[in-house]
């Protein structure tokens, strides 16, 4: 273990540390946990008690500074903390017990790792003397969570506990954010040791993320951008993670350069959907104009995105004639999937600040040079790739999202989703104007994410309107948290696009497996209205397009948790789509997606792939 030089009594204390700060005190391990959380600015945490964390829960009971939200399943705690973190920019904190408590939170940890969400998860562990003896509710928590965290610790010495928790917050929130786990055996929680406040002295010297970009590379990037005839900005979740200023700077850069901009699923809201340079989301279910522009561009500026396979489609046909610039804080993201010409390592906010400043000082955009490119983009836009056939008798899922968006426009709204067709429709049809308003499971694709995430958002924003756009299959994966929402009077709205299918699974079965709908139809569905009522919430249902607006308004105005069962067209599919094995310029558009075209969209080779 690392040295204990940190305990030198002459060491200066951190800034922003409150009351007890600055003092080294003797405390129990459980008291140290609470004090360290307070000193790191924690106001809320999500958890579930159990044998191995009882001393910490006992301390929680005797204080009022931190509000603890009792979940119904530890996975829910993890996703709540993710929603909390994503909507506030602060780390989410989770407290669970050993064994099943820890294993249940693994899905949320991996989800946070893939989407770069800062989480600090404290797990109880059996007493150190019993570790390795297959004790009751023992599991190798640090072993299990090693590949699904940014870093983790097993604390065997109470005198190291404070330092490790402070370090956990630093590692979770700096660099590329991510989840961390601190595993605390029960005897360490009972033992008495020295509390040390947070310190500006960095303990883990090997971890020093680089935030400032290389100015020479920024200059080279600007030269490339200034010479572009067909440029595109492709931004991602890194812009959101970098903070609000980064989104502001992105908007400035777009304004200054006049470049068109698209974004990944995770980056929605960094540039406003109402902005004139906005082309919609790109990728597998992105717009025609965004994907065609990515394919045909001559200079691509990738900001805080990672060339994920859902974005690039077929790699050997990905934007074949462009020079590529990539800004990212994670060196392993640069040149991982796609070779780039200029890789700028640094925090998006820092690099964009340099970029905007240098562009302002040296470049004037020659807008006439970009006119042919914009004319081409307008032709692609004219293809109206998000069009769908309206229906007077049945609610089309796209229409439901459009109405939800229109009717919540003037509210302080946060949207979360589960995973599947409804998620893609939400991304396509709900226009996001601000960052941190859109919480979705992008990398891992976790069904069951949206509802607990919405609860986490609501905890942080008590007076805001928080809606989980859900599918009928996904919502059943963490539905138990309805009980949590009711307990804490968190008026989250669950808006289920109910088509009785696992819609995305069915869509792929239609595309790939001869329309053999193996186990993608849910023959028995709960009565969602009664289910809501059984939990003590409000249930609503709607199946007529004409009734939809009034029903949505009623949902919005209900100051309690609501499950809204929106019965939509059962066989609608999500288009446009880049089918497996195809490139950006080979999209399947909604008006071309006849049954025959769908059945033949993917060739034999593509079928082997997800």
């Amino acid at each position, binding site marked *: 273990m690392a040295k204990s030089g940190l305990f030198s009594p002459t060491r200066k204390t951190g800034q922003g540390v409150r009351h007890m700060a600055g003092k080294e005190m003797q405390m129990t391990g459980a008291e140290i946990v609470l004090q360290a959380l307070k000193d790191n600015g924690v106001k809320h945490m999500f958890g579930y008690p159990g044998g191995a964390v009882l001393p910490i829960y006992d301390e929680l009971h005797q204080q009022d500074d931190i509000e603890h939200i009792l979940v119904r399943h530890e996975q829910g705690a993890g996703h709540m903390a993710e929603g909390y973190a994503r909507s506030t920019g602060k780390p989410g904190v989770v407290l669970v017990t050993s064994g099943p408590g820890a294993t249940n939170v693994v899905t949320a940890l991996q989800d946070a790792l893939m989407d770069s969400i800062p989480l600090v998860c404290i797990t109880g562990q059996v007493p150190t003397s019993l570790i390795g003896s297959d004790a009751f509710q023992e599991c190798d928590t640090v072993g299990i969570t090693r*590949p699904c965290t940014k870093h983790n610790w097993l604390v065997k010495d109470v005198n190291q506990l404070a330092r490790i928790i402070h370090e956990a917050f630093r590692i979770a929130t700096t660099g590329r954010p991510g989840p961390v786990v601190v595993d605390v055996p029960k005897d360490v929680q009972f033992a008495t040791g020295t509390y040390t406040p947070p310190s500006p002295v960095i303990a883990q010297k090997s971890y020093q993320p680089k935030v400032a970009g290389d100015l020479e590379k920024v200059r080279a990037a600007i030269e490339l951008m200034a010479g572009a005839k067909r440029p595109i900005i492709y931004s991602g979740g890194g812009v959101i993670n970098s903070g609000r200023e980064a989104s502001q700077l992105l908007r400035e850069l777009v304004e200054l350069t006049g470049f068109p901009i698209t974004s990944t699923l995770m980056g929605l809201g960094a540039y406003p959907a109402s902005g004139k340079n906005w082309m919609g989301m790109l990728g597998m279910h992105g717009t025609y104009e965004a994907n065609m522009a990515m394919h045909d561009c001559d200079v691509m500026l990738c900001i805080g995105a990672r060339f994920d396979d859902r974005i690039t489609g077929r790699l050997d046909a990905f934007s074949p004639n462009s020079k590529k610039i990539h800004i990212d804080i994670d060196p392993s993201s640069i040149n991982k999937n796609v070779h780039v010409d200029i890789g700028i390592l640094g925090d998006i906010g820092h690099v964009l600040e340099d970029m905007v400043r240098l562009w302002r000082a040296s470049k004037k955009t020659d807008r006439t040079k970009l006119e042919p490119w914009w004319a081409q983009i307008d032709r692609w836009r004219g293809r109206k790739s998000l069009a769908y056939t309206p229906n007077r008798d049945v609610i089309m899922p796209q229409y439901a999202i459009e109405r939800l968006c229109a009717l919540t426009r003037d509210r302080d709204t946060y949207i979360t989703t589960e995973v599947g067709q409804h998620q893609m429709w939400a991304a396509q049809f709900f226009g996001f104007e601000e960052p941190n308003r859109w919480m979705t499971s992008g990398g891992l694709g976790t069904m069951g994410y949206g509802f607990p995430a919405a609860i986490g958002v609501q905890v942080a924003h008590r007076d805001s309107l928080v809606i989980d756009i859900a599918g009928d299959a996904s919502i059943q994966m963490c539905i138990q948290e309805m009980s949590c929402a009711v307990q804490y009077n968190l008026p989250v709205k669950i808006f289920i696009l109910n088509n009785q299918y696992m819609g995305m699974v069915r869509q792929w079965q239609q595309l790939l497996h001869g329309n053999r709908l193996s186990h993608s139809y849910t023959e028995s569905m709960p009565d969602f209205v009664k289910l809501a009522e059984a939990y003590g919430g409000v249930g609503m249902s709607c199946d007529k397009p004409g009734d939809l607006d009034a029903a949505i308004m009623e949902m919005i105005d209900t100051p309690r948790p609501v499950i809204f069962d929106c019965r939509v067209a059962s066989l609608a599919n999500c288009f446009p789509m*880049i089918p497996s094995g195809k490139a950006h310029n080979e999209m399947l558009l909604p008006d071309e997606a006849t049954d025959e075209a769908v059945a033949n969209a993917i060739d034999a080779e593509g079928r082997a792939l997800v």
Partner: protein
Amino acid sequence: MNAQHQPTGSAYFMAAETARPETHTLSVLVDNEPGVLARVIGLFSGRGYNIDSLTVSETEHEAHLSRITIVTTATPNVLEQIKSQLERIVPVHRVVDLTVRSNELGHDKPLERELALVKVTGSGENRVEALRLADAFRAQVIDANTEHFIFEITGRVSKIEQFISIMRPLGLVEICRTGIAAMNRGAQGM
């Protein structure tokens, strides 16, 4: 990055690998804390990288630093990824590709040495031959009775491979190898 194993043409499509795999020796300086080796090995197994050889020991006791020497075989792009991914591990201080570094220094490859213990049993002509060959390879006898020898041999991997294959028909019963230790020539440190 198991790119080369995936069929062509998909959303998961990775270009058919045309680059040739190369064998490189990496030196990784880490904090000697619990689980650090598991993090490094887990990274290799989790992301499908190869480990040809792995050696680890604490090298600076005061600073609690360990040096891990890994020999791996991969295409140049993947080698870059391995290096970046290793650098992401929190207790990793530095990663140096000794093979790349030796080329920069104008050398063919880094200095690499391995130690092996080789137990050979037998009598008569085979026993005499084993001892004679061990002498030719400059292997030392570190234990013996009338029925066996244990040889200690140090050298490049190829020398050890050759020694083992020669000993096999002469009564070889047990081998233990350390994996390689490596550093670059010249006055400069890592």
